[in-house]
């Protein structure tokens, strides 16, 4: 029943304009992709010898941070067995799956030798001192876990299908064989996520002279883990609220109410760590004179943390869907701005010169990938049992 609602919601006539806009953006992204892969990085990006990393890396780490909802909800629902969260698990899983996949696409565009992307798999090339090695290995492992966790969603849909009998039988086999290992997958998913969300922050620890003191800290990995959990929860809430009509009748609204009470606590812990670190390292001294970095830092903390923290402390805000959505969106924006600050705006090359500003192609390709993510989410959510609780169909 929820499936039909979701289908109606996603394919319904009322949303055609949005769909068309997304397809148009996807087209722009395709043009950007052609520009990059056929004409090279020099022609398509504004990357330079001083700024080796740009918008695509920022988008990568942002997507991965916002995709953290996948492991957070899986952890709450299946490791802590809070069953009312089960309705959120699959939407968040789909978000995580698509977020990571899109991050890989963006990464491939950013890599100069994208055809060597598999090199970290070769033990002869392992370089365990590198933070990126850890990120790479964990992303590959987690992507595998995500696809395995997602396999039941596909298989449930087609198991026993009369139209494709062989495929249906295969699906049944997959379902039966994944059930015993699903707990292992969930534990592995949570553990791997924690590791690499944090190591994404650790990447910049090697460059203390290049990252502004407002962000560089030896515990950058901890900051990244905390902000990823927060951003993941906020994204899960926004996604759930966007599909709230389909979630009607499930336990999702209760879970959302609960999450909206936990979120300010997590935000308070996060801001306490941020400010505590600032005091310990005395980086507050760099707040004056006012510069671009201090402004973006202030926006990141005020709009991304303090404002939603204060908003979510009020029960009225938590009860009002549009206010709750606004607060969650603020949190998401704050996490994205944090990633942008660490990887772009707070990055200070040794030599003086012009600041890096992304090119049109960089923006276009990024927007196209995000549009593809939203389109794919809607397409899959309408056709697969995403908005149903896990055991719903199996027990039929």
């Amino acid at each position, binding site marked *: 029943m929820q499936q039909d609602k979701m289908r109606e919601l996603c394919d319904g006539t009322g949303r055609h304009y949005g769909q068309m806009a997304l397809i148009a953006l996807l087209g722009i992204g395709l043009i950007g992709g052609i520009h990059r892969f056929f004409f090279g990085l020099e022609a398509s990006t504004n990357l330079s010898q001083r700024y*080796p990393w740009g918008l695509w890396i920022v988008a990568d780490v942002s997507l991965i941070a916002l995709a953290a909802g996948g492991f957070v909800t899986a952890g709450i629902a299946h490791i*802590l067995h809070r*069953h009312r969260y089960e309705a959120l698990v699959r939407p968040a899983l789909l978000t995580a799956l698509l977020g990571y996949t899109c991050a890989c696409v963006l990464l491939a565009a950013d890599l100069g030798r994208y055809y060597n992307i598999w090199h970290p798999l070769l033990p002869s090339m392992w370089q365990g001192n590198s933070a990126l090695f850890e990120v790479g290995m964990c992303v590959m492992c987690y992507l595998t876990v995500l696809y395995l966790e997602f396999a039941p969603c596909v298989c449930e849909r087609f198991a026993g299908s009369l139209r494709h009998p062989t495929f249906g039988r295969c699906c049944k086999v997959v379902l039966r064989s994944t059930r015993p290992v699903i*707990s292992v997958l969930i534990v592995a998913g949570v553990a791997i996520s924690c590791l690499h969300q944090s190591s994404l922050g650790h990447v910049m620890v090697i460059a203390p002279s290049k990252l502004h003191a407002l962000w560089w800290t030896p515990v950058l990995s901890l900051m990244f883990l905390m902000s990823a959990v927060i951003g993941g929860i906020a994204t899960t809430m926004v996604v759930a609220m966007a599909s*709230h009509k389909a979630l009607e009748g499930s*336990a999702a*609204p209760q879970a*959302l*109410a609960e999450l909206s009470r936990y979120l300010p606590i997590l935000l308070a812990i996060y801001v306490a760590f941020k400010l505590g670190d600032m005091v310990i390292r005395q980086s507050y001294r760099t707040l004056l004179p006012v510069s671009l970095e201090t402004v973006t830092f202030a926006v990141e903390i005020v709009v991304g943390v303090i404002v939603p923290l204060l908003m979510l402390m009020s029960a009225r805000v938590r009860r009002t*869907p549009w206010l709750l959505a606004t607060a969650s969106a603020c949190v998401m924006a704050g996490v994205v701005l944090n990633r942008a600050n660490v990887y772009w705006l707070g990055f200070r090359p040794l030599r003086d010169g012009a600041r890096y500003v992304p090119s049109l192609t960089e923006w276009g390709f990024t927007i196209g990938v995000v549009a593809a993510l939203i389109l794919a989410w809607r397409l899959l959510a309408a056709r697969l049992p995403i908005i149903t609780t896990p055991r719903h169909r199996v027990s039929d």
Partner: protein
Amino acid sequence: MDTFTQEEGPGWADRGPLSRRAFIKLAGAATVLGTATETRATLRVVDPEAMAVLVDLTKCNGCRRCEAACQEANGFVLPDEQELADKSVFQQRRHPQPQQLTIVNRFEPPGIDRPVYAKINCLHCVDPACVSACLVGAMRKDPGGPVIYDPSKCMGCRYCMVACPFEMPTYEYDRVLTPQVRKCTFCTGADASPSQSVPACVKACPKECLLYGRRSDLLQRAHERIAQHPDDYVDHVYGEHEAGGTSWLYLSPAPFEQIGFPGMPPTAPPRLSEAIQHGVFASFVPPLAWCAVLALTMHLTRPVSDEKKPAAPAPGNGRLNPVSRPAADAAEGRPIRHATGQNARTV
């Protein structure tokens, strides 16, 4: 091994707690343990036989023959005599480019009656950040001195460029399919034996301001020169300690910050980042312990029956510890008006 301490020049006594022998022992122990990550730990102690170059900036007259020699050795476009004589290139500060791996800049520091010319290129750090950063080992520190790049391993992520405190690696953004990281090679190929070849720029210098030799010898020589001519030099060998030490060492008539050399702490950047990372991953014990905590929590909090009665959550998971709150839902408002109460599971 006994000659090791003798060969250490002044200032090397405090080069860190690890002796070479201890390092080898550690590496051996790590091999036995089978931890792939630690056997490849970056070279922390300089090899006494490691080769280096001493650049005496008091002698350089800015002829840029080293630039030309570098172009020739690497097969790049050669500047002709006229271009070399053209002093207008000094009007702006240049930096190494993918097709120009070494650059001479002119500085006019206050208090010195003539310009100071400074040749810059990859400094071939003793404990290089690029080597620590590269996730596929495309950057390698040769014990003989050079930091060597292997394009066949490279993925093109450019983390080496982010990590390098001197901002020396450059990238061939203009090549569509096979871009490479370009930096001074110390005139070694990826597989060449490095210790025997004198770099082309050293050979080309007519003023003998470049000196190629063992790092320990060169350091000693540098300090001797400072001691003999204290008025000609600032009392500082750049590269002796900067970022953990470099294979290119500089003597200057002016303070280094006035001639474009960045101030650097004496510890190599990878020491902190690797210490943290290997702490978190120490023989995979912490990650496995975290898995165990998660699995245990999962086991302890499993529902007693298939009813909606989850047991009290175990205290193992600190981050998202859900407060036990059976009635709180009812007390608190719900964010979405379509909420329909207690049918928590659609089993």
